[in-house]
């Protein structure tokens, strides 16, 4: 996905960009509203992360002036404070959600996902894998006439496989993607979720294959 990050704090911006890139997203960074205006007028983004306090103005004015342009792009406002008064203004002006800085990336990811699902967004999020059509926004698998709704972790796991078919992912790597560091989940948990995905994919040409001692991969027959 393509993100626009509007943030003037360089170290926070760098951390955010690094973190989002880690999950395979593309991030453009604007340090001020002037830059942001340039980016928005030339590129279409899947999601915008907008700092409310910027050196050359209030993020709210950006929301106001780009309301029509941003019709199809969800915006998550980032605020330094958890003030209600701020928030009310932000949501009224058309931001889809807000998050208090500096955020927990799990929270950011969860909010992005929720907002994208709610708003639809620009991205064509449908990936075809053999006879399986995977919509990562709505979290559905379409196999023939059947539509299967994936639950949160099933979805996140399948996203990992779908992003790189035939690539082998070790159990421990998958564990990192699915569970937070303090959840104390074991590799057995991965087996459980892989088992569930296999059940969903049964009867399709897509299959999750075990490579003994190495991990799992998605293969299309």
């Amino acid at each position: 996905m393509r993100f626009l990050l509007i943030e003037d704090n360089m170290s926070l911006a760098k951390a955010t960009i690094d973190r989002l890139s880690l999950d395979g997203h593309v991030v453009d960074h604007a340090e001020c509203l002037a830059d942001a205006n340039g980016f928005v007028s030339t590129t279409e983004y899947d999601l915008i992360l907008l700092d409310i306090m910027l050196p050359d103005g209030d993020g709210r004015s950006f929301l106001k002036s780009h309301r029509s342009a941003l019709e199809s792009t969800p915006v998550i406002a980032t605020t330094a404070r958890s003030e209600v008064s701020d928030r009310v203004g932000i949501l009224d002006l058309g931001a889809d959600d807000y998050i208090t800085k500096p955020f927990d990336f799990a929270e950011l990811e969860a909010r992005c996902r929720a907002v994208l699902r709610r708003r639809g967004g620009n991205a064509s999020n449908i990936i075809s894998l053999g006879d399986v059509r995977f919509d990562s926004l709505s979290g559905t698998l379409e196999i023939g006439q059947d539509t299967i709704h994936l639950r949160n972790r099933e979805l996140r796991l399948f996203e990992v496989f779908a992003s790189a078919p035939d690539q082998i992912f070790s159990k421990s790597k998958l564990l990192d993607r699915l569970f937070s560091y303090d959840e104390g989940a074991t590799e057995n948990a991965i087996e459980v979720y892989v088992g569930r995905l296999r059940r969903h994919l049964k009867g399709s040409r897509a299959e999750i294959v075990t490579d003994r001692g190495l991990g799992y991969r998605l293969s299309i027959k």
Partner: protein
Amino acid sequence: MSAEVHSRGSIRRRLMVQLLLGAAVLAIALFFIVQSLARQLAEESQDNILAAAVSAILDTTSVRDGEIQLDLPYSAFSMLSNISNDRVFYAVRFGDDFVTGYSDLPVVTKDDSFGPWFDTTTYQDDEVRIVTAQRRLASGETPLAVEVTLAQTRDGQRDQLMWISQSAAALGTGFFVSVAVLALLAARSSISPILRLTQSVSRRGPKDLRPVAAPVPHEMVPLVAALNSFMDRLKNSLTRSEEFIADAAHRVRTPLATVRTQAEITYRRVEKDENRASIREMIRAIDESSRAAGQMLDHAMVTFRTDHLEQQAIDLNALAAEMIDRLHPMAELREIELVLEQQGAASTIGDTILLQSALRNILDNAIKYSPADSVITLIVSQDAGMAHLTTSDRGIGLPIDDAERLKSRFARGANVEGVIGSGLGLTIADEVARAHGGYLTIANNSKGPGACVTLSFPLQ
């Protein structure tokens, strides 16, 4: 937060005392002035009458054949008895001889003037006003002086004076009473701008630090100016502390976010298990610090805001719905379902930000200490004048023997294992509830596993 105010004296009382003292002095002075004027007038009129009478008697005297002729005129005595029923004494002497009257009636000591001479003395056990006048009559070669002394008792005058004194006393008292009433009114009206100012300041909400705009008498302008500048400074310092709290959290956590990202990137690159384990420890420690910084500063914010609590009407159903909405993505990460159960209207008075913080913390606990793929219910209810926000989860439950201890700072249960936390969540919730006149109840579900935590607030 009402600090004790030392009061010494009262402006109204001081004003009253001063006005009343002044009035009393004036009233007493009035009394004595009226009394002495009256006495003077009465004495003067008696003296005039006595003088007239004595000269009338003198006028009737003549000398024939060396003998004094005298015809006491009736008019002279009727003049005297006009005043009252006072007794009258007289004595007539010719030369050195006593002629007629009361021989023992004393004679006024004469000075160099022509007279008549007056004196006040005692005669026959009564106080008398006494007058002596002389007239020279030709008798033989040498003129001889005929001397008439007239005395009158002063009972009538004393009665009159008594009456006048009583009137003067009544006048003084009346004067005093009316001045007292006026003083009371004056004290009240001069104190009323102060009372109005007090009311307008004390009616304000704790966050209302606007300067006093209503006009005040110009004697109070310095006070109000000082008050306004004080409120201005207070506002600045409140804003600064609030900004400081928010800013501090930001300052501490931003570099942690950077470090965490770097650690995570490294973690994904590293293959060796022991390296991965140590980086995981690192990330954990970072998360723990970040959480602790956030919670500590949240706690500071709570302490700060409870010091001057806002008083807004808060609809707890709306608050709960909003919070569920907000936490939904977080719960979803662990496939936890949040269910809101609203059992009728419930609202309270207080600070929205604080209530949100309290509710967020107990819901956050429910999510943290619940297994994946479970249900958490938030119930909004009311009974007996209290509104309740109850979270009920199917998680690990509270260590039952020391549940109350968990409300204290940095206290964590023995059952939390690896879950990251700082032990301030319940402290925050408890302090918010108590600041609003409510309480926090923590218990385990009566049926089934999991904890049941309730925030209670007085109903609006």
